[in-house]
């Protein structure tokens, strides 16, 4: 009970001060039928080392990226996180602060959000970005909802291969029947395109932009690998750019917490979901930052809010901002290029494996190959040899990914194992 500072003496004094004869007096409003008589079937408290031992057993039963040849991407990417990032996000002042509702004592968090918003806006080629969303899939779903508010229309068109989890999330947020793969028409709120698409292929936007303009729909670009923006053109043609920023600053962590980003054209600002931080002056005229335009949000607008979202992914946005600060313009672009070159090397090696075909013609750091055998079986067989081969698609197709973490030895190990398995 090391987290509880109250002493027995203090408890007794306080009970007396409140006029209670025992602690249960303070629970007198709770109906007797709801009061639990027997103890909970739970273990008693434990010391640090016992807890750590218990949790370590779980951790040790997982294969971790970094320990084995690892070629799995598909919406979550294994990248290096500089030591500085983890050091900064563990500072008490960031880690244990609350949402910056009291700006006089939260300027640190607020300036970081302002910097984060600037990074996202620059990287996506958009005017403004919010303080972040839960993750890529919810960010895309919120983009669709926002497009519906802006256009007052109800249909969403999917233009290409979008991450299947993102599509099923969208199907939970909007009516399934309102999502189609048809060309947009006058009922279409937005066209959503993923780039690179789920199979790793980078997309062009001009034709889609034209299509959207013809019917008055918004163009939403979703990005699951934000590192790609260091090499691929910015989706400047889009009205909303959203997606997943886990690649910058965040570990894989079995799926979360991640960092949904959300950027758009300034003219749609009032329909944006989520928190926004803005620059202003204090009572002495000094520059400072505050959360702003909050009348869009649930705590003021209640059932008429743009979204029910309350938190952002504050600490994850901080990790992103620290990592981006370290990378800078040159580092970000170098990182992107190293990812692409790692994928090129992987492709060049795989093409030499008998029976393996490269399906994708263009890619960033992820592409599709065809195996002579069922891909899921191959993935399972290789996992038993401590190689994470990629994401099995339908039939014999496998989605493979390389990042700056991928070594020549990793590639050689994969090729050898595939040769064996095929």
């Amino acid at each position, binding site marked *: 009970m090391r987290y509880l500072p109250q002493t027995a003496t203090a408890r007794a004094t306080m009970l007396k001060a409140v006029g209670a004869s025992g602690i249960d007096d303070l629970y007198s409003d709770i109906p007797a039928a709801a009061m639990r008589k027997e103890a909970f079937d739970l273990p008693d408290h434990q010391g640090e080392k016992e807890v750590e031992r218990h949790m370590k057993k779980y951790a040790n039963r997982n294969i971790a990226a970094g320990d084995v040849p690892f070629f799995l991407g598909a919406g979550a990417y294994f990248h290096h996180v500089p030591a500085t990032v983890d050091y900064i996000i563990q500072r008490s002042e960031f880690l244990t602060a609350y949402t910056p509702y009291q700006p006089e004592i939260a300027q640190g968090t607020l300036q970081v959000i302002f910097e984060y918003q600037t990074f996202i806006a620059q990287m996506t080629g958009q005017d403004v970005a919010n303080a972040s969303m839960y993750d890529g899939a919810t960010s895309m779903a919120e983009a669709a909802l926002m497009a519906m508010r802006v256009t007052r229309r109800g249909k969403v068109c999917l233009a290409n291969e979008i991450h299947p989890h993102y599509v099923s999330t969208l199907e939970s947020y909007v009516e399934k029947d309102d999502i189609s793969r048809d060309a947009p028409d006058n009922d279409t709120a937005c066209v959503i395109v993923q780039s690179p698409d789920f199979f790793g292929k980078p997309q062009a936007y001009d034709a889609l932009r034209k299509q959207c303009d013809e019917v008055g729909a918004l163009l939403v670009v979703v990005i699951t690998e934000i590192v790609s923006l260091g090499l691929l053109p910015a989706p400047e043609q889009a009205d909303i750019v959203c997606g997943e920023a886990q690649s910058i600053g965040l570990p894989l962590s079995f799926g979360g917490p991640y960092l949904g980003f959300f950027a758009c054209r300034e003219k749609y600002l*009032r329909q944006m979901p989520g928190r926004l931080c803005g620059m202003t002056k204090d009572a002495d005229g000094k520059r400072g930052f505050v959360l702003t335009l*909050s*009348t869009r949000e649930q705590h*003021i*607008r209640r059932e*008429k809010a743009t979204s029910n979202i309350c938190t952002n992914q504050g600490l994850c946005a901080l990790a992103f901002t620290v990592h981006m600060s370290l990378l800078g313009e040159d580092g970000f672009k170098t990182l992107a290029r190293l990812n692409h070159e790692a994928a090129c090397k992987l492709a060049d090696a795989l093409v030499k494996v008998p029976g393996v075909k490269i399906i994708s013609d263009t890619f960033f750091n992820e592409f599709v190959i065809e195996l002579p055998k069922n891909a899921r079986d191959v993935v399972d067989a290789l996992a038993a040899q401590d190689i994470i081969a990629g994401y099995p698609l339908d039939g014999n197709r496998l989605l493979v990914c390389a990042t700056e973490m991928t070594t020549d030895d990793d590639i050689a190990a994969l090729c050898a194992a595939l040769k064996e398995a095929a």
Partner: protein
Amino acid sequence: MSDMQYTNEHEWLKIDGDTAVVGITTYARHALGDIVFLELPDVGRKVAKGEDFAVVESVKAASEIYAPVTGEITAINDNLPDNLDDLKEDLDKGWIVKIKMDNPSEASEYMDKTAYETYTAGLE
């Protein structure tokens, strides 16, 4: 301006033939504090009596403005969003929309200035 009429929801309206000119009252303006944003409806939109057609925002609150009469919005005061100080109980500068009434008798039920002042005094 003595022929303005007033609603419980703090809109004023002035009848001009079959058209109602609508704005918000001085009382509402004070209650809202510093206004930072006004969202106007589209011209041509049909509104029902009691339906919200515009939103006025301060830093900490968003308030809907309700149509006092049923009809079609024939004009909006484009000047207001950029000149929020003009949003007041003023027929020339402070009007928000003009509504062509479907049923002009709807306008007859609202308070006159004196009744409205008594009403707002009771809210304090």
